[in-house]
């Protein structure tokens, strides 16, 4: 029999966290700080709206782009929050989570050989999605000393005449970094000058702390035309399982993204779309409640790391900490494996998010204070032993 598989898919590395997932699953007493989703239930008014839509028998396809009312509300919301105006009839598309939005944007925009700049550490899907779309990923190694923000120098050094797209994902999973308006301004200038498009993955846009609010690169003059906004309901409204995201893009791109989406997916889940109307119209207070709660846990972990002397820059977004473990002289993978075996605490090694994540861990704080307190006790015991041995 001939090889049933494509070269492309065989060349794509499996996700680095699979191994940990398998070990943790066999360990019922383990605590995990490895989860990349909120610990809140979807607010009841949103769930209730979903239930109601099922009771009313709204169980059919929607239009390919999604419910008109939802698109209209999303565009109103986005304008109100981030000051960029999108035409809900032609520039908005409901997708199956933010993930699908990234995939369809890349497939709508890339020709074979086009280069896509991906600052790492980053979410696990960007590189494989670029490869599946026939593009060439060009990664940039973000630096701890820059608090994992992309600098203009780093961007310029990565640009070639084949560069077509920059994927910008702030607030960041896995680092928790954000980029302010001042940080973004020179990046926007370069993109305009070098004629580069930006896929701006803003799925964590609502989760920023310490007085910072999210700024989109699409809000700079001349940038809306070359920016594809990816966002969704998963993180802001604790709706991960509903699988609902959206893309906002100039009509010429949005139309072709809709084409890919139409043939691959047809439309985003109808129940989720009805529920999301309630989220986007009445969900501001829910976001604020959850955001305040994450912020308390963020403070709690920052203090715990400070007390145990584990260096970590102060993350201003998402719900992750990205502490540095280089002092222990072992790899992230070994650190995480031993932490799991010896203290039954699961975290994700930084290398799961790119090679330059070596020497770091991703620690999620989407957990209760009680769980975090217990977990910090375990990690402190573990690093105390490591330090004693190294001394």
């Amino acid at each position, binding site marked *: 029999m001939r090889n049933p598989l494509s070269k492309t898919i065989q060349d794509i590395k499996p996700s680095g966290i699979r191994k940990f997932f398998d070990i943790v699953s066999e360990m019922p007493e383990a605590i995990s700080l490895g*989860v990349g989703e909120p610990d809140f239930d979807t607010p009841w008014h949103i769930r209730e709206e979903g239930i109601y839509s099922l009771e009313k028998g709204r169980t059919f396809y929607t239009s390919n782009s999604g419910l008109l009312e939802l698109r209209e509300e999303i565009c109103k919301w986005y304008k109100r929050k981030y000051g960029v105006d999108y035409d809900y009839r032609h520039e908005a598309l409901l997708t199956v989570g933010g993930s699908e939005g990234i995939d369809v944007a890349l497939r709508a925009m890339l020709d074979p050989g086009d280069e896509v700049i991906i600052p790492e550490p980053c979410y696990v899907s960007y590189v494989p999605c670029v490869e599946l779309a026939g593009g060439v990923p060009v990664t940039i190694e973000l630096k701890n000393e820059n608090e994992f923000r992309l600098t203009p120098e780093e961007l310029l050094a990565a640009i070639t005449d084949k560069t077509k797209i920059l994927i910008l994902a702030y607030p960041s999973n896995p680092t928790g970094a954000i980029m302010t308006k001042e940080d973004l301004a020179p990046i926007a200038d370069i993109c305009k000058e070098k004629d580069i498009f930006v896929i701006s993955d803003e799925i964590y846009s609502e989760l920023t702390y310490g007085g910072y609010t999210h700024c989109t690169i699409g809000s700079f003059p001349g940038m809306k035309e070359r920016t594809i906004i990816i966002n969704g309901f998963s993180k802001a409204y604790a709706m991960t399982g509903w699988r609902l995201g959206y893309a906002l893009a100039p009509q010429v791109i949005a139309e072709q993204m809709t084409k890919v989406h139409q043939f691959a997916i047809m439309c985003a889940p109808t129940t989720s779309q009805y529920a999301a109307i309630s989220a986007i119209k009445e969900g501001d207070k829910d976001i604020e409640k959850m955001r305040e709660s994450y912020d308390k846990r963020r403070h*709690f972990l*920052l*203090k715990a790391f400070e007390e145990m002397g584990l260096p970590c820059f102060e993350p201003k977004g998402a719900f992750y900490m990205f502490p540095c473990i280089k002092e222990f002289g072992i790899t992230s993978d070994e650190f995480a494996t031993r932490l799991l075996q010896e203290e039954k605490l699961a975290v*994700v090694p930084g290398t799961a998010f790119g090679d330059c994540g070596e020497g770091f861990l991703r620690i999620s704080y989407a957990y209760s*204070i009680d769980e975090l307190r217990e977990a910090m006790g375990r990690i402190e015991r573990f690093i105390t032993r490591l330090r004693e041995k190294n001394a």
Partner: protein
Amino acid sequence: MNTEILKLLETDSKLSVKDIADMLGLDEEKVAADIKAMEDKKVICGYHTMIDWDKVAEEKVTALIEIKVTPQRGQGFDKIAERIYNFEEVSAVYLMAGAFDFTVILQGKTLKEVSMFVSNKLAVMETVVSTSTNFVLKKYKDHGIIFDVEKKDERLAIIP
């Protein structure tokens, strides 16, 4: 006054001063002083424990008693309320707008204790026109806490 501290204590009064300080990014001394000041001012009126008495298996009930009264000249409702809330078996008294004047709540009493209290103490007060006693059959949620629902973390252990 620090409402952030209050919000934390309202959901978990067992949080330590250190926990609160860490969660809010404040000094422990500052948090301890704020709490003390709010206790002194009676902003914080006590630290209670949410108990599901149904699980304690004794024949205890919660009764909501609606009371209609005739307010006395020069004394109004407050004086009548005082005569009611000073009974130690009363756990809450509210002045109401609507078809009756006071709601009186008795908690953790037996049926007999409730009926004795209503007939011997409340109904005989001269200002009381009528009483209507209601019993709680089952508590689903109290003080924002949903009873009897065990919450398990159903998320996958590791998610990118």
